[in-house]
């Protein structure tokens, strides 16, 4: 299993540009998540999905959009990039069973710079 894969690894955007961060998992997990990580600030949840076709906002959703058309893929879309979106972005997935959430598996991250 490849686990959780993310592309690209690095990207530089100009202010106002748009891009999509790709995330794929091959563990058949129903839950998927997008986080951003800023120095000294831990991990902030942007969006999450409990299954294909179902998404919901996390703590910091402004400026981002997501979709979940399949179990495996959970792309994150940045519209009109701003310097405040400079960060490292992590995708994660987890399974639920019997009403309980289990371990989240993280991808390697995408380092995004907006200038």
């Amino acid at each position: 299993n490849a686990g959780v894969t993310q592309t690209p690894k690095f990207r530089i955007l100009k202010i106002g540009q748009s891009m999509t961060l790709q995330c794929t998992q091959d563990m058949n997990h129903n839950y998927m998540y997008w986080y951003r990580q800023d120095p000294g600030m831990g991990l902030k949840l942007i969006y999450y999905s409990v299954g294909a076709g179902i998404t919901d906002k996390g703590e910091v959703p402004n400026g981002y959009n997501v979709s979940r058309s399949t179990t495996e893929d959970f792309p994150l879309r940045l519209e009109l990039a701003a310097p405040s979106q400079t960060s490292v972005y992590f995708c994660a997935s987890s399974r639920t069973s019997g009403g309980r959430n289990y371990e989240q598996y993280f991808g390697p991250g995408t380092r995004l710079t907006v200038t």
Partner: protein
Amino acid sequence: QQQVKQSPQSLIVQKGGIPIINCAYENTAFDYFPWYQQFPGKGPALLIAIRPDVSEKKEGRFTISFNKSAKQFSLHIMDSQPGDSATYFCAASLTSYGGSQGNLIFGKGTKLSVKP
């Protein structure tokens, strides 16, 4: 109610020392407390986790101590090695619930350096 406070922000110990990282939470309904380890340039990975029905859990050199009445839990690393140098995150969640209530709330992280 939803915060997890982690301290210290950074920690330097000598090889063989026992670094201790502390976390405090507010929501008494939390029932899952994992610790994640993150090496530079990598994503976080689950290190060890505990549920509130036990006061301590050991896996190898890593131990979680849990104090339910104080709403605190801590990570101890026995006989620390330079390879343990990483950032450590505590987290908490309500695993019995779906949706947003089941999401992990992370602390801000502790950067650990173990000197040879």
